[in-house]
């Protein structure tokens, strides 16, 4: 752990969970993210909004080094989680991703049973010492994801046979099962209908109690409904970041105002 305290930051806000400084991301020759500085608060929901191609998803993926899987992608600057730089060569990206879970745009359950989908992470990381412990992890993850009542009698059916909304909540349960501290969500509701979306949003609100959540969304209403803080990205730049109600009612930047009033994007 990096023990160097950041006094300036400590004065202005509570200890942040994620602290990004001067982050640059390049895809080959394209400079996709420019000079992003952001502090993300623990046990709260932070929303990234912005028009398509503004870099919000790219930035989200730097937070658990998912961009490592893309050959031509290069990240500069520092991103600290709990004070530890995640781009330090000593950090194992695989361990990092266990701590910073991710939920994707399209529900992507594995072609396995519901039970095996949830048990996948705990098995890989050796979190359960016995079958009964594993059963417990599966049950509690499904409970936290609000899916237990719907699936408790069909845990051995394939996860791919569920409805889209259920699949997405299954993916959230799968992420919870490895007890991460941070959950990144990349437009988790864009493939869902309004009813399923409402359920997932309700779930995100409940999860805030135990997890730090960062969500990328195209829907400004969704950002307003679920998040405490909002960051607006435009053309790879973090334009404005602040409390959600401030961003939506009293934006400081002209571009933010134009975007939330629907003038572009």
């Amino acid at each position, binding site marked *: 752990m990096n023990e160097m305290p950041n006094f300036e930051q400590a004065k202005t806000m509570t200890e942040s969970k994620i602290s990004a400084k001067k982050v640059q991301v390049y895809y080959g020759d394209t400079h996709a993210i420019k000079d992003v500085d952001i502090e993300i608060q623990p046990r709260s929901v932070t929303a990234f909004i912005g028009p398509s191609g503004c870099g919000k998803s790219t930035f989200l993926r730097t937070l658990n080094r998912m961009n490592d899987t893309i050959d031509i992608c290069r990240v500069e600057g520092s991103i600290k989680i709990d004070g530890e730089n995640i781009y330090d060569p000593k950090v194992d990206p*695989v361990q990092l991703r266990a701590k910073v879970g991710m939920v994707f745009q399209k529900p992507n359950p594995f072609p396995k049973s519901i039970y095996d989908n949830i048990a996948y992470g705990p098995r890989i990381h050796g979190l359960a010492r016995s079958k009964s412990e594993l059963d417990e992890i599966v049950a509690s993850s499904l409970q936290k994801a609000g899916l237990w009542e719907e699936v408790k009698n069909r845990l051995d059916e394939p996860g791919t046979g569920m409805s889209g909304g259920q699949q997405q909540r299954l993916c959230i349960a799968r*992420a919870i099962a490895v007890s991460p501290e941070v959950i990144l969500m990349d437009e988790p509701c864009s493939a869902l209908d309004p009813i399923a979306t409402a359920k997932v949003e309700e779930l995100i609100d409940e999860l805030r109690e135990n997890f730090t959540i960062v969500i990328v969304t195209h829907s400004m209403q969704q950002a307003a409904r679920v998040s405490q803080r909002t960051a607006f990205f435009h053309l790879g730049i973090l334009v404005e970041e602040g409390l959600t109600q401030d961003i939506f009612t009293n934006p400081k930047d002209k571009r933010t105002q134009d975007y939330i009033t629907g003038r572009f994007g």
Partner: protein
Amino acid sequence: MSLPYILIALLVLAAAGYIVGRGKALSSAGGDSRELHSLPGYYGWNVVVSILVPALLLLIAWLIIQPIVLDSQVSSKISEETIAASSLDLVMSDVVRVAEGLDLAVSKGAMSADTASSIRIELTDVRSRLGEIGVALGSEVTAETLRAAQTYRSISGTGLLLRSIVVLAAGLIGFAVAVLRTNKDFRARNVVETVVRYILIAAASIAILTTVGIVLSLIFNTVEFFRLYPAADFFFGLTWSPSFGGGSELGIVPLIWATMYISLIALAVAVPIGLFAAIYLSEYATPHVRAVAKPLLEILAGIPTIVYGLFALLTVGPLLMNLFGSGGALGVSWMSGASSVFTAGAVMGIMLIPFVSSLSDDIINAVPQAMRDGSLGLGATHSETVKQVILPAALPGIVGAILLAASRAIGETMIVVLGAGAAARLSMNPLEAMTTVTAKIVSQLTGDNDFASPEALVAFALGMTLFVVTLGLNIFALYIVRKYREQYD
């Protein structure tokens, strides 16, 4: 008018039809193509298909029917005694040969057309006159053969003339009808697209009908074989020792055993190597390596199997002899000759590597990136992701690939002939020479055999057995692939 000229005439007619049809459609719309139902070209093509489709169908029908009619007309002129002396087929082939000789003589100017149709055996030595222009006849031409040949010529001449007239008339009628129907509201595009659909259907049915034809030809001979040789002895006999003098034992068991044994060894070589190569290429290799390595691996698939056979015979066999043969490096004498089940199996396995790897590679690549992301996002390593998510998701496809490779192995011939030996034997030792069903089909049908003997007909029964086994494997492979294909989306 001979066939090429008819075809050329039809094509010229069709080209003219295209121009006329297109022109008429345009002029009916006052030169404004926006007024037309379809693009102007469709009206042209509509005329083309109206000319070609009926004309060509008639032509094909004529080509099939005329020889049948001709045959029955001419053969009715041949007396019973002549047929009894040899056979109808032989007499008819003589007749056709004389008729063709006369045709050639006329076209070379050695005989006038009148002479050809009126010469009599009593007046001219037909055999020597035809011999002068290079048509050799096996026996003296009898008066009856000559008369039949002349009838043959006259009927076929009339037939050819009629054929030209009928086919060209059909083309012209099609032309006229299509042009008359052409006006700006005529739905030419729909007509052309219907015709295209039928052409596609025809192409697909040719492939299917060929399969049916192959099966039928096998079935007739197989049934014939089982009339001569008891089926139980064939399917359960443990000895294979055909002798053309009679008293053969034609048990399929040693052959099936060797076929399965060699295929198993081949798969044991090909499946792990091919699968691991596919995983490396699709999951770990950089794009540069992949761009070079994949085509190189697929070159293996392009090598003719006879070359693999030589490799087995000249390299792998002696190498195994040096290891396992008497006086070999291991000091055991398990192997008595370079040909063995293991030699053939190993080389066949090498042949199958690109099969397994190429198909598996495509299948692994088809697993959605979302699966990989999902697993990596949970903190799984790359190899955990491959082992626990990608391979299970790709498994049905991989099983399909393996089964296709298996049916390829079962049907393989040349590697077996050169690598495994020719002795039919029932043994567990993989270093002994054995031989497979396919290799025996070759040896039973090559050489001067009596085609009516069970020793030759057994080849069809063997082929049928093989066909059923590989067909079953292929159907099973397709079933597996289909059943699990929609597991991920």
